[in-house]
């Protein structure tokens, strides 16, 4: 896949993400302040706009820079800053990539995860987006076969990761100390990442969700 093809996929996937806004607002409201729905829908809208301004034959790094900056600015917030900042960090990590193959995708994902963990001061198990992101990258690393199959494996791993956050204490154990209003719900940021992967699959393989490989 070329960066231009990825741009095209993202342009189709972004509008689908808005559908998750209500769900994410509710999940974020259960444990936090409820603004994640807006962060994701506004972020997706900002990304879509940024994609439209990209020149043809764009480099992967430039694509990531544009997407990262747009997402960070869409609705500034923790999630926007971490994910947007993560994509900017990834752009620095893939400066010379010109195709988006599995290795490149993995490098981007790992760079994003590392940046989120570093800037957020968080680790797997802290009930964050990392608990879906990292398992999905592990799945990608082990995947063989078509890119559709790899994406499916990533989604499966992210789904499991999201489910696991239900049992995790939000914000590094705060629930153990305070009430348990957030407990039992999956983490909002992890869910947002899962919805992103699912949107990507939807535009990759058609709405029937079946994988053709």
């Amino acid at each position: 896949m070329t960066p231009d093809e990825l741009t095209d996929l993202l342009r189709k996937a972004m509008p689908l993400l808005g559908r998750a806004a209500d769900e994410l607002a509710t999940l974020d409201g259960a444990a936090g302040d409820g603004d994640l729905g807006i962060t994701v829908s506004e972020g997706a809208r900002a990304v879509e706009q940024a994609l439209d301004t990209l020149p043809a034959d764009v480099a992967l790094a430039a694509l990531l820079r544009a997407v990262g900056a747009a997402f960070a600015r869409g609705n500034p917030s923790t999630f926007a800053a971490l994910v947007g900042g993560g994509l900017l960090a990834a752009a620095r990590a893939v400066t010379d990539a010109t195709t988006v193959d599995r290795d490149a995708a993995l490098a981007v994902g790992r760079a994003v995860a590392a940046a989120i963990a570093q800037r957020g001061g968080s680790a797997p198990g802290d009930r964050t987006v990392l608990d879906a992101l990292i398992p999905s990258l592990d799945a990608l690393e082990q995947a063989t076969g078509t890119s559709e199959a790899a994406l499916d494996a990533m989604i499966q791993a992210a789904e499991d990761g999201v489910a696991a956050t239900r049992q995790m204490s939000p914000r590094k154990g705060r629930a153990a100390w305070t009430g348990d209003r957030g407990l039992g719900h999956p983490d909002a940021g992890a869910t947002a990442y899962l919805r992103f992967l699912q949107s990507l699959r939807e535009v990759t393989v058609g709405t029937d969700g079946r994988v053709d490989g």
Partner: protein
Amino acid sequence: MSKKLINQPANFVDEMLEGLLAAHPDQLAVAKGDSRVIVRKDAGTGNRVGIVTGGGSGHLPLFVGYVGRGLATAAAIGNVFSSHSSDAALEAIRAADCGRGVLCLYGNYTGDRLNFELACDLADAEGITTTTVLGHDDVASAPPERAAERRGVAGLFFAYKCAGAAAEEGRDLAAVTAVATKVADATRTMGVGLSPTIIPTAGKPTFELAEGEMEIGIGIHGEPGIRRGELETADSVVEQLFERVSAELDLGPGSRVAVLVNGMGATPLEELYVMYRRVRQLCDERSVVVHRAYVGEYATSLEMAGASLSLLKLDDELVSLLDAPAASPFFRQ
């Protein structure tokens, strides 16, 4: 459904700022580079250390309401309950700097921190010295041994008041920062929520509270508290809040405190005074001297019903800084 006097939800914050600037053109102005930055009319002049704050909207008078004389110099404005951008934070820092450096004073929320940290890095590259002090007064948000992780809530007002007075006096950045740190470390707050809030663009409550239920320790965005239970009397609620906010301040006979009984939005001022009555009794019983009492809406959560109690333990320096005059459209002393 939400009962709000608004227009397009997406325009809420910008229309609010437009109204604010139209109402107070003598005191406030928008920064040149960013419509989401509000500054004191005289920002950047006067050879004072700048104080910049910021955060999500929906908390008036927090944050922009504390931009004024003897208070903060500029505020970066986010969407409702969402952080300001790092661009706005940088612009606020630029606008507040007169060459003596800028204190970034805001609440401890990850999003606000991330955006301020980036802005400070960029300001540094431009030759503007910054320091940072985070409000972390909400005792319900982490146990004492993790006090630095706590969220900042209404008690931030005390930090603006004292650091602002120190800056107004002409103290240097290190001294202003030391005052803010001292206040942040000597302030404790806990709140109680009686009803949820509604983010305009979401249009429905972020959480539910049953009829006759209250949530002790609730956060300023509706973050979960320590305990839900049946609504109790004002006296009983105050006793529980007082117990928690006073516990870590080592108050004894003769200790001096400033008290803030803060309304979250929908709770009538009358009820805040009923609460203050009990706070004062508890202080009197302990021979703790209330040097100043503030009762009103100082940090709200849109239309949430509820209140919070903040205590600041005072020493001679803080007493004189707290007593200094200050003036913004929302606070004047």
